[in-house]
Each structure stands twice: as structure tokens, then as C-alpha cells.
């Protein structure tokens, strides 16, 4: 009885209608990597000019606003869990992160309240860039127009 009720609650989806994840293609993986390294670049290489330009402006502006607010850029560390997560968030910005590290930007000014906002801006710019790169991948495999 209970088994029958459970079965009726979950309607069976015919195999043809199930969403199948498209296999990765070299173009899609390339767009993912370019998109990670150059924020917005994953869309631009696939000729999604408008979307790519908007993503580029948003992520780059957010990252540099964070630096302008004297936000901290995390280096690789094995200390506090939040510092480790901060590093991975920052790393999401790809080339911008390496540029900031090379130029020795982002020391963080602990006496400024804005520096804390800046730290968050830099981390979120990295996280948004990961979302953007994954979106470029989905365009590459044809999952998204």
C-alpha cells in the first residue's frame, strides 16, 4: 500500500525527456579556462560580445574597487579556515589575482572599515568570476544559447 503511494507520488520521467549533461568539448573547456583567467573572456571568445563586456566590466570593477578600498588579497596559507577560504575566493578572479599578487597590491588596512568591505568585494569578484566561467562552459557545450 505504502509502496504504491510512494510510486504514485513520484511520476516517472520517460528516458527521452530526462536532461542529459552534454559531454565536455575542447571549445567549452577552453572557454572555461579563458573565462577564469580573464574575467568575461570566456564569453568574448565565443562571440557573446554584450554579455562578455558586461561581465568583464562588473567583475573587473568590483575587484579594483576592492583594491581601492584597501581590501586584503589573500596569499596561499594553511592557517585559519576563513583565511584559506578567502584565498580560494580570491583565486577565482584568475589573472586579476595573479596581477594583484605580482604588483604586491592588497595588503589590507586593518584601521579602515572600508578595507573590510574591500576584502569582501575582492572575494566576491572571484566567486562571481567562477559563476561566469561556468556559464561560458555551458554556452560552449550548447546547454545555453
Amino acid at each position, binding site marked *: 500500500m505504502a509502496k504504491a503511494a510512494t510510486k504514485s507520488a513520484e511520476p516517472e520521467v520517460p528516458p527521452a525527456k530526462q536532461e542529459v549533461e552534454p559531454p565536455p568539448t575542447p571549445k567549452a573547456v577552453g572557454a572555461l579556462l579563458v573565462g577564469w583567467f580573464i574575467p568575461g573572456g570566456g564569453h568574448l571568445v565565443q562571440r557573446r560580445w554584450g*554579455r562578455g563586456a*558586461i*561581465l568583464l566590466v*562588473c*567583475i573587473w*570593477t*568590483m575587484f579594483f*574597487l576592492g583594491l*581601492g*578600498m*584597501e581590501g586584503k588579497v589573500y596569499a596561499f596559507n594553511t592557517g585559519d579556515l576563513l583565511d584559506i577560504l578567502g584565498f580560494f575566493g580570491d583565486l577565482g578572479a584568475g589573472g586579476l589575482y595573479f596581477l594583484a599578487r605580482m604588483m604586491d597590491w592588497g595588503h589590507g*588596512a586593518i584601521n*579602515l*572599515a*572600508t578595507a573590510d*568591505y*574591500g576584502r*569582501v*568585494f575582492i572575494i*566576491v569578484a572571484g566567486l*562571481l568570476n567562477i*559563476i*561566469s566561467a*561556468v*556559464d561560458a562552459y555551458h554556452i560552449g557545450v550548447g546547454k*545555453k*544559447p
Partner: protein
Amino acid sequence: MTIHLSHFSAAMTFALFASIVFGITHRNTPREMLRYGAKCFLFFFLGTLAGGWLMWLLRH
């Protein structure tokens, strides 16, 4: 040169850029992107106001 933003303006700047990226990456057509981005921004804005009033209530 350090950029100084108030807490509210920093939150709104954050909301603007995050909403634009969410709109573009989470929807398929330009119209849907615009609607979703606007919705995200509205939720960020209302969430900021609600959080501000909640902290005010906790303090008083």
C-alpha cells in the same frame, strides 16, 4: 588613494554588480536576464534595509 564608501553605498554597489552577473549567468534570454537581475537587486536592497532595521531593534 583610498576609496571611502558608506556601509549602505558599499552594499548597494555590491548588490548592483552581483545582480547583473546573476542575471546574465542564470537566465537565457535578455528579457529574462533583465527581470532576474532586477529581482535580485530588489531582494538585496530589501534585505539590506531589513537587516539594518533588525540591528536597530536589537540595539534599542
